């Protein structure tokens, strides 16, 4: 018997997986791994929801998520225009590159949508009572009266209005360089928005993008643990007792998400699969 090639695509060492298969998967999902030059709405097809419990039983050669091109996910918070805005923005904040997909493929839109639709969006764990001092020194922290959901809703609307006014186009339809320029100006506080400081809006957007990129896929982003594969983080492991002091260990075990543990494969009486 020949030695089996156990190199199932799902379980490759991260670097081998990335180049071939994520690119294929990215293509399958309708995302072009290059700087978008056409309408962002076509290219930035929203990623499917987080991978189902357990690695899928993919045929060899399939991409990391062996699914049909992604359907648009259910959005609880964003309307379609807001979703297009956010996707266009996150596509530049964490872009795709030839080796690794970006925030769009990873489902960061879904992550942010769910966060804003939930307690975080409503300002949980935030003391929101007034009076408010919006121009307080930064050392005193956030002093506005808005919840994160409001910051997104208001910020998106006001940035869109600004872009429409100054560039005579929708933000989501701008080219990559133009979007970069708008984001850079927002970050630097150079755009005057009516209700909130542009730097505040940008920082909340960037924070949520990075969180959605790196958080466990159960939260809607980090599809197929792509960011973890990229940096080499095994995820929801609970023990490294034997390997913590091996120097330079190239740890190759498949990453694990909390979702993997939800798989229940108990079979009773007569049913079995393998």
């Amino acid at each position, binding site marked *: *018997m*020949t*030695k*089996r090639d*156990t*190199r*199932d695509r799902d*379980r*490759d*060492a991260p670097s081998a997986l990335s180049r071939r298969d994520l690119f294929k998967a990215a293509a399958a999902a309708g995302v072009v791994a290059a700087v978008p030059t056409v309408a962002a709405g076509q290219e930035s097809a929203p990623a499917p929801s987080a991978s189902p419990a*357990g*690695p899928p039983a993919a045929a060899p050669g399939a991409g990391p998520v062996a699914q049909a091109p992604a359907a648009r996910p259910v959005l609880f918070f964003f309307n379609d225009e807001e979703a297009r805005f956010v996707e266009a923005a996150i596509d530049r904040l964490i872009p795709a590159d030839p080796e690794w997909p970006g925030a769009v493929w990873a489902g960061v839109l879904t992550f942010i949508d769910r966060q804003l639709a939930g307690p975080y969006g409503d300002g949980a764990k935030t003391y929101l009572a007034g009076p408010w001092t919006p121009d307080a020194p930064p050392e005193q922290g956030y002093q506005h009266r808005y919840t994160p959901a409001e910051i997104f809703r208001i910020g998106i609307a006001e940035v869109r209005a600004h872009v429409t006014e100054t560039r005579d186009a929708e933000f989501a339809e701008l080219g990559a360089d133009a979007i970069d320029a708008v984001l850079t100006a927002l970050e630097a506080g150079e755009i005057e928005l009516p209700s909130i400081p542009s730097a505040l809006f940008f920082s909340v957007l960037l924070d949520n993008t990075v969180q959605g990129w790196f958080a466990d896929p159960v939260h809607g982003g980090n599809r197929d643990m792509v960011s973890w594969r990229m940096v080499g983080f095994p995820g929801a*492991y*609970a*023990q*490294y*007792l*034997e*390997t913590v*002091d*091996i*120097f*330079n*260990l*190239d*740890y*190759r*075990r*498949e990453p*694990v998400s909390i979702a*993997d*543990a939800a*798989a*229940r*494969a*108990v*079979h*009773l*009486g*007569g049913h*079995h*699969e*393998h």
Partner: protein
Amino acid sequence: MRKRSAFGSGIAAVAVVAALHAAAQSPEPAAEVLTPDAERGQAVAVGASAPDQACMACHGVDGAGDAAAAFPRLAGQSFVYLATTLIDFASGERPHEIMTPIAEALTRQEIIDVAAYYATLTDTPFAPPSAETDAALLQRGGTIAALGLAPAGVQGCINCHGPDGGGLGYEYPAIGGQHAAYLAARLHAFKTAESVGDAQAIMRGIASRLSDEDIAAVAAYYAALRPPPLAQDDIAELPPQLIDAFNDDDGEDAE
């Protein structure tokens, strides 16, 4: 006649791990690096040169083991765990009436080869689960597996053995889909410290807090699972430090 390998100094699981670290940190490469070869391992498994020592007699060519006889399933198990366990059998760290003489008769190369062979059998079907397992027992086992046992001060098995017992770290076995009788026997052995092979006595600490019914419950539960292939490493892609640890450092193996 097969040359008996010289593990005489008793390299225990703990010592293997220590060797693993030393090998990784050593400024010089090991004199002769043995590499695992699953094809050669298959020859060991079928008893090509020692027919009365064939692994397949109990564990099967496909590594499915035997549920009734409590011969463990080896197919798709972690390579590091399989190799370490054979060394433990030979050294006395994990004395076993049947396995100790068999393991003692293997050279180090044969050990890592046959470990690689069984580790790469990722397609072996699982046995159909017993239709008679009590649902309440499964439920109890599932709760212990996921959450642990508060009154006993035992954490959930999932913490170290991974989702559906598929395994996490290289050294800890996948237990999903393992035969219930074997799992129960191991837990009882840990409980009485008859056989250890348990660095830091972690499993002994846990098993000693489980009742017989708890043990039956987790064994039945894990036997019914079909785990994700987390423990199925690609042998060719294993970190070299982990292979290095199994090199015969005392230089006595002359096979």
